[in-house]
């Protein structure tokens, strides 16, 4: 998983191999079930969470989505837009793809202060992911 090694310092707490660590960090981060994968910012604060097993493509898409949300929360609009777009361009069939399309549009709008970005996103949902809840959320921009 090149994406993980490039974007994160990966750490694992194993429930059976190290139950003390599992208890310690499970309580700290409110993670009491496996698999639970947290994305933490450099200060150790959680910014995204994936709970439960996912097939590889969906798992990777969730990790990419979470990383994009971190840039979004930090106001890095251009970087966030790029990362959100990568999700649905590289993994168009993943469950996270419609959400990524939605937030790519929001990131562009916030970065450029241009409402056309939202209209374009609503239009994009008319041809792809149109049955998703994210298409409904974007429909108000049409």
């Amino acid at each position: 998983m090149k994406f993980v090694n490039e974007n994160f310092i990966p750490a694992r707490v194993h429930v059976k191999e190290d139950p003390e660590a599992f208890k310690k960090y499970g309580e700290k981060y409110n993670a009491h079930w496996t698999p639970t994968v947290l994305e933490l910012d450099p200060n150790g604060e959680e910014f995204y969470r994936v709970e439960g097993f996912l097939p590889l493509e969906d798992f990777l898409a969730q990790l990419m989505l979470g990383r994009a949300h971190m840039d979004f929360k930090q106001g890095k609009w251009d970087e966030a837009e790029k990362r959100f777009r990568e999700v649905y361009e590289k993994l168009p069939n993943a469950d996270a793809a419609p959400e990524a399309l939605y937030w790519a549009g929001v990131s562009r709008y916030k970065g450029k202060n241009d409402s056309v970005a939202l209209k374009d996103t609503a239009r994009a949902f008319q041809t792809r992911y149109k049955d998703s809840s994210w298409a409904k959320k974007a429909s108000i921009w049409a």
Partner: protein
Amino acid sequence: MEIKFRHDVDNVLEEAKKQNKPILLDFSAAPM
């Protein structure tokens, strides 16, 4: 490519601050 998971979480938290790099923290029960 294999993910190079570390198990020294306290050290990872310190290093993440120094490197200004996010952390992926995996709570797992998968066979090792």
